[in-house]
């Protein structure tokens, strides 16, 4: 028998540490070679660490949520034989995030019952099974039911201490004594602690940095998208097979490319410590995307060089990859400006938080038919608000407004998106 140490491999480019997000084994487990031992998360990719050999787990590096240094001991195995090297940093197949979206429930620790029981804790737990009788009716004698009804007590809220969870007169008395009277909505005192780990922690950190360091200016403007929606519907109905279905996003991306051509300083990173704005010629648009584990921002690279269909195809591909948890690290970093959209849930207006260190983010609100005064009458038009935020340290309100007005103009007369003036 020999001990073999599995060390945390370098799972990204030049990353010093990674957060432990999931254990697949526990001490004492027998594992086969290539079985997954656990998963760690780097910037935005989750990486599973396989076992380099058959063996029995004798030690684990820590708890979910701990941050481990690259190269530190990860798992210790008891293995057969003598020839195997004493320690080994396993090879990771690819830096692709292979399982980040699989089991979101593992990202949060189990709800914890507060150490001190609340005063209305049951005196005794019933033996087994659900508390209530057929048809979800609480188990109580008719006289108890009548008293409860007259006191306005919903017996489903009363813990029964009798056999099979039967609610006795005493249980009802105790419930009433606690003040559980006429309200069907009793006060709740339990606190559930949820550990913020993995992607959720990354999001929290990024949001804190962005919100604490960037003085945001948010500008909301409405856009008449009736013509754009007509065009979009026509293009979708006549598209060739194999082409992606067009959403509003590729049009907005193309409009942003045109607007940025006139205001290139909006497509930038602001390094506030160095006091430098890095203005990028390439337009890499981050698309804020909801995944089962949380918000990620896959990046459509070089939007300036993509036509409409290519934008659409890339958005579709990236959104899929992000949701399936197999977007690569490259695909999740390097944006220079970001779009955030909640689709049908887009609401009237939002206050988007800038994707640090970028300087602008464009938020898309819900499209709705609203009455529009055309000068003579109210006409129904498809209206959509854009809620956009800018880093006020480097973008003035006037520039922000000009940028949004330009996008509005392009979206309202969509031909202008495609025709060079």
């Amino acid at each position, binding site marked *: 028998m020999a001990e073999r140490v599995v060390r945390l491999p370098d799972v990204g480019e030049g990353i010093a540490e990674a957060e432990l997000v999931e254990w697949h084994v526990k001490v004492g487990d027998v594992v086969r070679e290539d079985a997954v031992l656990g998963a760690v998360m780097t910037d935005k990719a989750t990486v599973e660490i396989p076992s380099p050999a058959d063996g029995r787990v004798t030690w684990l590096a820590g708890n979910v949520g701990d941050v481990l240094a690259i190269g530190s001991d990860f798992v210790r195995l008891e293995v057969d034989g003598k020839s195997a090297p004493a320690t080994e940093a396993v090879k990771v197949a690819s830096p692709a995030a292979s399982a980040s979206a699989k089991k979101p429930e593992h990202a949060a620790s189990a709800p914890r019952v507060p150490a001190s029981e609340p005063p209305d804790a049951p005196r005794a737990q019933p033996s087994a099974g659900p508390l209530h009788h057929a048809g979800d009716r609480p188990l109580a*004698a*008719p006289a108890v039911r009548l008293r409860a009804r007259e006191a*306005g007590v919903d017996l489903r809220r009363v813990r029964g201490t009798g056999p*099979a969870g039967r609610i006795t007169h005493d249980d009802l008395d105790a419930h009433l004594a606690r003040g559980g009277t006429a309200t069907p909505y009793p006060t709740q005192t339990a606190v559930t602690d949820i550990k913020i780990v993995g992607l959720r922690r990354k999001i929290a950190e990024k949001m804190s940095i962005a919100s604490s360091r960037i003085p945001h200016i948010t500008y909301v403007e409405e856009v008449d998208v009736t013509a754009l929606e007509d065009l979009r519907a026509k293009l979708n109905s006549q598209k060739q097979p194999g082409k992606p279905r067009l959403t509003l996003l590729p049009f907005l991306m193309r409009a942003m490319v045109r607007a940025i051509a006139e205001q290139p300083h909006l497509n930038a990173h602001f390094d506030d410590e160095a006091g430098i704005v890095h203005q990028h010629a390439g337009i890499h648009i981050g698309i804020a995307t909801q995944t089962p584990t949380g918000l990620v921002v896959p990046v459509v690279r070089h939007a300036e060089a993509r036509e409409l269909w290519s934008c659409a195809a890339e958005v579709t591909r990236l959104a899929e990859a992000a949701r399936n948890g197999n977007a690569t690290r490259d695909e999740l970093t390097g944006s220079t400006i970001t779009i955030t959209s909640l689709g049908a849930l887009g609401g009237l207006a939002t206050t988007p938080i800038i994707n640090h260190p970028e300087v602008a983010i464009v938020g898309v609100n819900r499209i709705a038919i609203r009455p529009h005064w055309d000068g003579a009458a109210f006409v129904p038009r498809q209206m959509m608000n854009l809620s956009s935020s800018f880093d006020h340290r480097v973008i003035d309100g006037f520039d922000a407004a000009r940028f949004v007005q330009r996008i509005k103009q392009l979206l309202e007369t969509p031909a202008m998106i495609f025709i060079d003036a």
Partner: protein
Amino acid sequence: MTEITCKLLVIGAGPGGYTCAIRAGQLGTDTIIVEAEKPGGTCLNVGCIPSKALIHAAGEYETIARAAEGESALGISTAKPSLDFARTIAWKDNIVRRLNGGVAGLLKRAGVRSVAGYARFRDGKTVEVETQSGRQMIHAETVVIATGSEPVALPFLPFGGRVISSTEALALTEIPRKLVVVGGGYIGLELGTAFAKMGAAVTVVEAAPRILPQYDCDLSDPVARRLTALGVTVLTGAKAKALVADGTALAIETASGEQTSLEADKILVTVGRRPATSGFGLETLDLDMDGPFIRIDDRCRTSMHGISAIGDVTGEPMLAHRAIAQGEMVAEIVAGRRRAWDRISIPAICFTDPEIVTVGLSPSEASSKGFDVKTERFPFKANGRALTLDREDGFIRTVVRADNHLLLGVQGVGTGIAELSAAFSLALEMGARLEDVAMTIHAHPTQSEAFHEAALKSLGHAIHI
């Protein structure tokens, strides 16, 4: 036309309606009840009560007749008895009359005003009644529809002549020599059995593959065996087709597809009952319906504010004690009490020979509700009291949750076990577990011991089996 107002108006003085009115009166609610016939409804006048009277008389007669044929195991012998059926009917009518008078007296004592006649809705708060003394308009804050149900006729076999419903069967002046019963449900079998015991040659025509299809076979089999022993011909899977031309026989198609006919002095059609929802202007209210029934919530409120409905018009099971409980509840709600329907079980009894009692969930109903179920039965042949009654057929069955032994249902079949239903219902309503029944002393020697023993058996330690 005279006009009167009241707080509560009850339409129909059946068990549900009169109970509602009496309870309302007790609570000081200004109440009027409208009824065209004698108080007591189907149950008292042409249902439960008169049928039980006839069933009892038939049972007594049959015991004596069997003794006269030398078949009494008890050693009793007698001359061939005779039955003065007119006197039997008179005795039954007297019981009904006494109860009619009783109900009327109770209503009066509770301060309820009774209006005789047929009610007709003018609107949701107003009904019109044709009384002997002229037309009466009644305005009420709350109206309770308790109009009950009526026998369903077969379209090809309308009531009239030899074709009768249960109502006419309870008012016959002589015992039919040949009686054909169409419909082997509980009403047809209760009456068919009674007439068979009183000497009629009875044939039961049932379309389903077995009698009492609403019960499981375990419960219906002892009844089927007893029918055979009583000489009743049971044709299952058979369809009644039509009266033959001269109206003296019923054409049927047997289970094997054979076309034949059954001679009959009377053809009793008992294929079900339907709610009485038409003919009194209910349609104009446009209440939400639930199939043929009036839709109600857990407080017996209909879809129209201020109109409640109770009893057979509101759905299955069409049983008097359900209507009674609903009526009581509605009266208390009208008086401002907080009430809602939360009963665990509505017991049902089939007064066949032997009797069937069902309370709560059957084994299959319990399983279909997702419970892990434990079912156990204790036979009356291992019950001393049953042997002393010379009737050892049948059993008591418990249905419990396997995990916590909570009683979900109790069923039984046996002679005279209708009275045991009280014990079963109380156990269910109290939330009893097997252990509760097992730890309760059941008097010896009684049939109730079979309930105790079924519980013990389910716990794995029955004594007498």
